[in-house]
């Protein structure tokens, strides 16, 4: 097991190195000048040349690459041309907001997904089954910015149930930064009514993002339940006289969870993609907003930094999923 994890980690380093190299060169192949994107269109040529030299963009690409790799090995992901901050600082600054959103979205997605998938399989062909499918496909096929805006219009504009945007009320100060995670920091500051208020702010964006992942979870959950339900051991369990809920929840669910977990792991990627749009709609100050702004301004270091960061999250999620397999199905051995 330990040696398996070590091998996987070594592989991860290679993957990340590859992703980094490819992104580094891809970003620079685009015939566009990040300096021209960051400075106003009326900046004089001297100003442009100056900033280019400042950012080391006047050096040959191989030299730039060498400098970059050297930096990465020393824990330096370069400086963002847009924010003028070290990219690593930026990533750490914006990550907590995204993490809070993604965790909340995953919880919502998983609860709704598994419940709907389970019910759809048990009550196959019923209205519940069909409407569950419509609900989940709907979430998947609508882009997050559309879902988000529709939810805002319905739930905050017409019904006034939820706030429109942001992590907290527009007119308040943020609690002192300790962990960077707003809700946690608010707890540390002991402001419990603000914590509730923040959870209330989190609801709509988390639902928007969670809905996205519901679709695949429902479908996989439903089909693997349908596969498991006719199995002999389920029949045996029923014949033993176990209650139907015990049969479904204890015997069927655990086995049907296996493929679902894979999907949930893969959802990490779609959550990050969705976060880019969701964060923009809800003015959520997370890494998605940072990524969008960086891409639009062709901020080389930030683009590569975000990509490495996402690749790291994605490969870690995959590793965790693989390890979870073993827990759920002892037949799987790591060699």
């Amino acid at each position: 097991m330990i040696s398996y994890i070590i091998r996987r980690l070594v592989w991860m380093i290679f993957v990340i190195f590859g992703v980094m190299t490819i992104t580094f060169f891809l970003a620079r192949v685009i015939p566009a000048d990040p300096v021209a994107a960051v400075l106003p269109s009326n900046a004089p040529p001297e100003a442009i040349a100056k900033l280019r030299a400042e950012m080391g963009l006047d050096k040959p690409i191989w030299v730039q690459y060498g400098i970059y790799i050297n930096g990465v090995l020393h824990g330096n992901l370069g400086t963002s041309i847009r924010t003028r901050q070290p990219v690593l600082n930026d990533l750490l600054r914006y990550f907590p907001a995204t993490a809070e959103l993604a965790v909340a979205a995953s919880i919502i997605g998983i609860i709704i997904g598994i419940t709907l998938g389970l019910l759809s399989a048990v009550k196959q062909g019923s209205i519940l089954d069909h409407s569950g499918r419509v609900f989940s496909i709907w979430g998947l096929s609508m882009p997050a910015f559309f879902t988000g805006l529709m939810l805002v219009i319905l739930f905050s504009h017409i019904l006034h149930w939820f706030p429109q945007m942001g992590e907290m009320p527009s007119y308040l100060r943020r609690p002192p930064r300790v962990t960077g995670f707003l809700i946690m920091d608010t707890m540390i500051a002991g402001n419990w009514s603000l914590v509730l208020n923040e959870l209330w702010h989190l609801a709509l964006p988390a639902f928007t993002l969670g809905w996205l992942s519901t679709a695949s979870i429902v479908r996989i959950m439903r089909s693997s339940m349908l596969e498991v339900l006719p199995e002999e051991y389920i029949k045996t369990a029923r014949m033993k006289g176990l209650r139907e809920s015990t049969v479904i929840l204890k015997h069927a669910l655990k086995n049907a969870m296996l493929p679902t977990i894979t999907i949930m792991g893969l959802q990490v990627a779609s959550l990050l993609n969705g976060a880019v749009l969701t964060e923009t709609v809800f003015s959520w100050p997370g890494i998605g907003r940072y990524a969008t702004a960086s891409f639009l301004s062709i901020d080389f270091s930030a683009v590569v930094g975000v990509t490495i960061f996402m690749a790291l999250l994605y490969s870690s999620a995959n590793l965790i999923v693989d390890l979870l397999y073993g827990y759920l199905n002892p037949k799987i051995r790591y060699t």
Partner: protein
Amino acid sequence: MSQKLLLIGALFAMCALPVFSQAIPKDTLVVGLDIGIIVDLEPARVYEDASNLVIWQIYDNLITFNGTFNVLSPGLAESWDASADGLTWTFHLRKGAKFHSGNEVTADAVVFSFTRALALNFAPIWMLKQYVPSSENIKKIDKYTVAITTTVPLSEGLMGAIMGVQGICSIIDPAVVAAHKTASDPWANKWLQFHDAGSGPYKLIEWAPNDRVIMQRFNDYWGGPAKTKNLIFLDIPEVEQQALSLESGSIDIALNLLPSAIEKFKTEKSFKVYEIPGWHIRYLAMNAGMKPFDNPLVREAVKYAIDYNAIVNGIVKGAAVIGETFIPVGIPGHLDATPYHKDIQKAKDLLAQAGYPNGFTTQILCTPTFPGRDIAIEVQQDLAAVGIKADVVQLVAAQMYTLYRAQKQEMIVADWGVDYASGDSLVKPFAHCCSTGPDAPVRQLAWRNMYSNCKLTALVDKTETELNEAKRLDMYKQIQQTILNDGPFAIMYYPLNQYAAKASVKGFVPMNSLSFVKFDGVYKE
């Protein structure tokens, strides 16, 4: 049964959700805007509207503008005078003006601020450097008097416009900088990216990037304390969200709204809409260094082919005013002339006269965003009507400007922002080009479009040193007229800056440039 109870309970809980008030307290003004992709509060480096706007609240300049750019208002300098040769400007400082630290604003601080900006030498410094190249040009006369010498004689309007530029000409507290400098960062550049050392009506409390800028009124402000205690700029990148937030009351003022949202707010009593022509010029340019645009008749034909009305009323839905000269409304020296309008026959005649009776093929560059792309498509149709076949090529801004700066475009739809409140910031980019090679001193729009006119360039150079304000403005008009007749630009409009606020918001004065809007007089009833 228990399940049903649970469901009913949950529904009740939903109804009880809005327990937290969204209402903004009266002593707090929340302004929603797209703070944008560029973020920096280092005064020596700010170079676009959103950051300028923050700097304009927390720092003061020697001079300022109140509601108009035609009149200079005293800022930290109570008065100023020039030597007879126009080369030395003496500023008399207001006594008793204080920085947020409590330190007094003195001549030393003024000398320090300019020295710092020149030493840091960031991108926008060229605006100052073109006339005040080094810190040797700035001298303390006594505790409350500073003399600035310029390389060429400057008229009051031009000197004032430069001294009014936020950031590079903002006055900074030397003691605060000294307290935060380090060996590798002698100007406390890193610290000032997130903190303030100003004397403006508001103090910077916190800037959380991508989220909000929180400011609080400075009670010892020389102009009297601001009317609202807390000022918050909230970053809302999505324009629809800005409109919804204003409607629901989670912001008091929205600065980036679509024309459709503006129309809606106009019809509602509880909101007030503010409109003012902006410091922007939207134009189509033709590369005069390439055939067939080297022929002035062809350029004129294109100017007559364009349906300006369709662009202003159709595409941008009236959120602009038609303007065909390069100094926009609101800047002294604007030439109010709009001779071109869609005239297909005239355009065809001009093309025939130029030797292109059957038109020609060309290319229009634009960005894939509104309204650039939509305008390019409209122009494409307008040109087709006179026999010119144009392909529309959409490129992201960074890519398009890279080509444009290398003079590689045939036609391009682009826009231009004004740097400072003087025609001086426009005559050079639009009309200064006597050589199209890389040695040209000004390589801006006239140069990028390879429009070389040495006589006109000489006139542009003369405007710089013309001390008589009226004469200088006349020269600007003359230059605009030449470019209007002969130049490579078909200028289409000046976009309107459109803002909406709750009707209870009073004292908001829009300016032609968002960078110059002051919030210390704004309050809620």
